[in-house]
């Protein structure tokens, strides 16, 4: 059996049903453990004080905001190439989750930025890029909502997602060109030297795992809802013709 068979709506509904509660439960465990560990059992930063702890929400949310878009891009490509309905619906399902993560990243960033930089908002390249990402999500969701025929909507939003991805990357570099910014460098990288200290790093990893699992759980749930909605639509169409 090819892996693509799991993308058949009926099979998808079958295997996601047992997976869904587990992913929610795991996400909850990771988030509770990670956040409590991070908030109460790590020392305050010698420069940033206790405000540094917002990192446990800010970094995972920002990471998932970008990853959600990448997942939508991959799902759109799969829809365009192989025309699996579940793929298109998963892209649709991921967009509102991604936009909320973007908003969380922007909001927690503002809360963190105020004591550090003395301002909630600055036209820093990273902040600006996230604002632009927010606009891309907004346009993508609006296009889905505007088109009645689901297959046409899937096709058009897929093309928009692909073109949008190219322009999102262009915007990222344009914004860097435009303003060098206040934001610190990446908090995470594979190069250990540049990372935050281990005491912050481990609870952060747990939080990131929690956000990833939460994203998976939410997208699965929303995709299941989309599939059910399409199914109702199909049954109604059949009933009308009978």
């Amino acid at each position, binding site marked *: 059996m090819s892996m693509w068979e799991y993308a058949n*709506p009926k099979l998808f509904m079958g295997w996601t049903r047992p997976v869904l509660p587990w992913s929610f439960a795991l996400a909850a465990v990771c988030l509770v453990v990670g956040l409590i560990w991070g908030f109460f059992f790590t020392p305050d930063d010698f420069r940033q004080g206790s405000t540094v702890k917002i990192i446990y929400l800010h970094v995972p949310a920002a990471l998932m905001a970008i990853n959600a878009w990448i997942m939508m891009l991959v799902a759109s490509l799969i829809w365009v190439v192989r025309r699996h*309905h579940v793929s298109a619906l998963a892209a649709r399902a991921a967009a509102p989750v991604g936009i909320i993560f973007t908003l969380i990243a922007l909001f927690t960033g503002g809360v963190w930025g105020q004591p550090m930089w003395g301002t909630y908002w600055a036209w820093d390249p990273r902040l600006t890029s996230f604002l632009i990402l927010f606009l891309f999500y907004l346009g993508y969701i609006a296009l889905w909502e505007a088109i009645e025929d689901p297959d046409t909507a899937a096709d058009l939003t897929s093309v928009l997602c692909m073109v949008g991805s190219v322009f999102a990357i262009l915007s990222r570099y344009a914004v860097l060109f435009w303003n060098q910014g206040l934001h610190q460098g990446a908090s995470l990288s594979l190069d250990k030297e540049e990372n935050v200290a281990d005491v912050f790093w481990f609870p952060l990893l747990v939080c990131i795992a929690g956000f990833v699992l939460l994203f998976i759980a939410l997208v699965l749930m929303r995709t299941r809802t989309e*599939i059910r909605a399409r*199914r109702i*639509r*199909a049954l109604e*169409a*059949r009933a009308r*013709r*009978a």
Partner: protein
Amino acid sequence: MLRVENLTCARGGVPVLAKVSFAVDPGQALILRGPNGVGKTTLLRTLAGLQPAIAGNVSYPEDEGAYASHADGIKTALSVTENLKFWADVHGADLPDDILDTFDLADLRDRMGGTLSAGQKRRLGLARLGVIGRKVLFLDEPTVSLDAFSVKLFADWLQNTHLAAGGVAVIATHIDLGLAAPELDLTPFKAAEDARGGSDEAFL
């Protein structure tokens, strides 16, 4: 010249016609019949390549198909001649000298598209077919808003110019064009309620 085999086509993701098969020889026309909503427009758009077929084959010489419906692409701010000249240029053809006379447009040649009556517009839209030089025509209700005289003009052009030169036409119409052409009733091809190939099928 035109061969259609087991064609299934859909409107809004729902199959409307299934297993349509017919063939039209050079110089022949085919009249499509059937009640409103049976799928005549869908079939013609599928044949013209504007929408993909769910199943089946359509074959006719490449770059010889032309589609015409009630929306005939007339620009209100261009004159009758300019409208025709544009489509001739797009198709890399020359404007035939007698085309305006054939469709009784000679007196209107410099009138703007926007000042034409509905019937005059329709004649201009049909004259486009005589300009682009395509052999396989898919015509959706070509005689809407034409008076009896204009219908005769069009039928004469179709018979004596287009078909006589070896062209082919598939015409959806409710009136009698006076052509000696076979008729195809689409009612028997109506897709079954559970016909395969709809865009929602994977969900059922």
